[in-house]
């Protein structure tokens, strides 16, 4: 089973994503901030990372830079409410940029494209 690390500080949203993606047959590990996410990346292997940009403490961009220092090969999806950074995500070494929506279809399709199921 493919293992996804989800970083989302909003508790309701992280619960929604966790349930929906588990339904798709993925194993989901949730972190609510960048530091605990990095701790997890150091300890266990992941097939994919999904992260928000704006979070308390380190933001998503900083998190991606730190992950790159640990594990260059993990694909990363940015899942955020901000539209304004859409043009920059490639320079942060992310693989996809998705604007949060109540329909999770785009996110699910992108995950499938990157790691299959």
């Amino acid at each position, binding site marked *: 089973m493919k293992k996804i690390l989800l970083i989302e500080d909003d508790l309701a949203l992280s619960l929604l994503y966790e349930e*929906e993606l588990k339904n798709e047959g993925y194993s989901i590990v949730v972190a609510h901030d960048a530091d605990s996410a990095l701790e997890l990346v150091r300890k266990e292997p992941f097939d994919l990372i999904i992260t928000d940009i704006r979070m308390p403490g380190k933001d998503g961009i900083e998190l991606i830079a730190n992950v790159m220092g640990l594990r260059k090969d993990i694909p990363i999806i940015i899942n955020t409410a901000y539209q304004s950074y859409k043009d920059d995500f490639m320079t942060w070494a992310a693989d996809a940029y998705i604007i949060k929506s109540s329909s999770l279809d785009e996110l699910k399709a992108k995950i499938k494209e990157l790691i299959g199921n």
Partner: protein
Amino acid sequence: MIERYSLQPSNFNPETPKELVILSIIAQSFFQPFSLEDNLLVILTALTAGSGIGFNRAMLFLNDGMKLKAATWLGPRSPEEAEAIWTMLSSPGIGYAEIVAYNRDLVTKMVRDIQPRLKSLVYDLESRTLPLPAMAAVNKEIILVTEAQNEPAVDPNFINFIKVDSFLCLPLVAQDEILGEIVVDKGITHAPIEAKDIELARLCALLAGNYIYTTNLYKKVVEMEKMAALGEMAAFVSHQLRNPIVAIGGFTTQMLSSPCQPERCRRNLNIIQEQVKHLEDIIYKLSHFLKNTIRELKPVDARPILLNLVERPDIKLKAAKKTISLKIPENLPLIQCDQVYFEEAVVNLLDNALDVTPDGGKVYLRARPYNDKYVMIIIKDSGPGLDEKSRDKLFSPFYTTKENGTGLGLLFVKRIIDTCNGKLEVQSKPGRGTMFKLYFKIQERG
């Protein structure tokens, strides 16, 4: 040995050349709060004062984008009125402020008489053939007109208005932009306009042009700041509202797309209800933040407010497992602010301090006079403290570290303190807690 001189131009001795006196009066504008209207008024006065450059009347035209429009006409209507102005201007100690006060009254009186007629002097800057006086502005050159009646380039309507045969057109130009024009004449003395009159008038026109240019630039900057704030607001709306909306939509879809277990359904509905409450909270705080400003600064007795504050039920509830250490001296001076907003500012910070302080920890609330000028209020928490990066972001709009924060609280605090002419200082280090120092100006007695 050292000698000291005031930066502000002071009284001149009678031998000082009149040009220097005029320019130094104009230069006093640098020590006044910037007012385009007042600055132009002083320049027009300098141009028309008999003891000054020697013109009698000055008409100001302004470029409103497409058209050059007459805005003000300053000067005496009769030799008697001229005499009165000259006497006023040659009295000792006369300066910028006195001229503004005197002339504002004069302009108001004059404008009432001639304003309707002045409005008829409008020139379309886009038009191919422009008569004088507008031609000078478009050509960006100073033009001296003599024997105006016989000069076909002069607008007959204008001659009919000023009723003189000789006048000087001074374009107001800065950074190659046409900003307006000043037309001066010697309609009272009927003396000829000489070369030295033109030299000093040129300098006045350059200054006036720059005043207008600066004002326009300032307006543009304010406009740009508003747009930037609007952009930030849009980002905020998109982020803060999108999260709860996505959650509401997502959990609703979940319930609709598969048979819903009663327990799961109930949980989803609870989450949706919470998210709606959060949306309401955001909208309330946002409209509160945008709408409210302090209208008038009043003396505020901070002590009873601070003492009552810790008794507020919301604060007491938050402080249940923590200690608030309170030290407010009895003879605390009155401060300049607004009672309601002062309380709001302190509550905001106290609320934050309680949020980050762990159970069993202490929050400090202190007040004392500082430096004879300020009352200093200190709010210190025993929380995790902030690193440099978070400290820098502290006052950026919509920055929050709280699960349900709006990122407007500290911005609101800062705005209150700015409006009260106070100061705000933050000291924080990771592991050492955060201390806010608010300085409010002491209300002077009488």
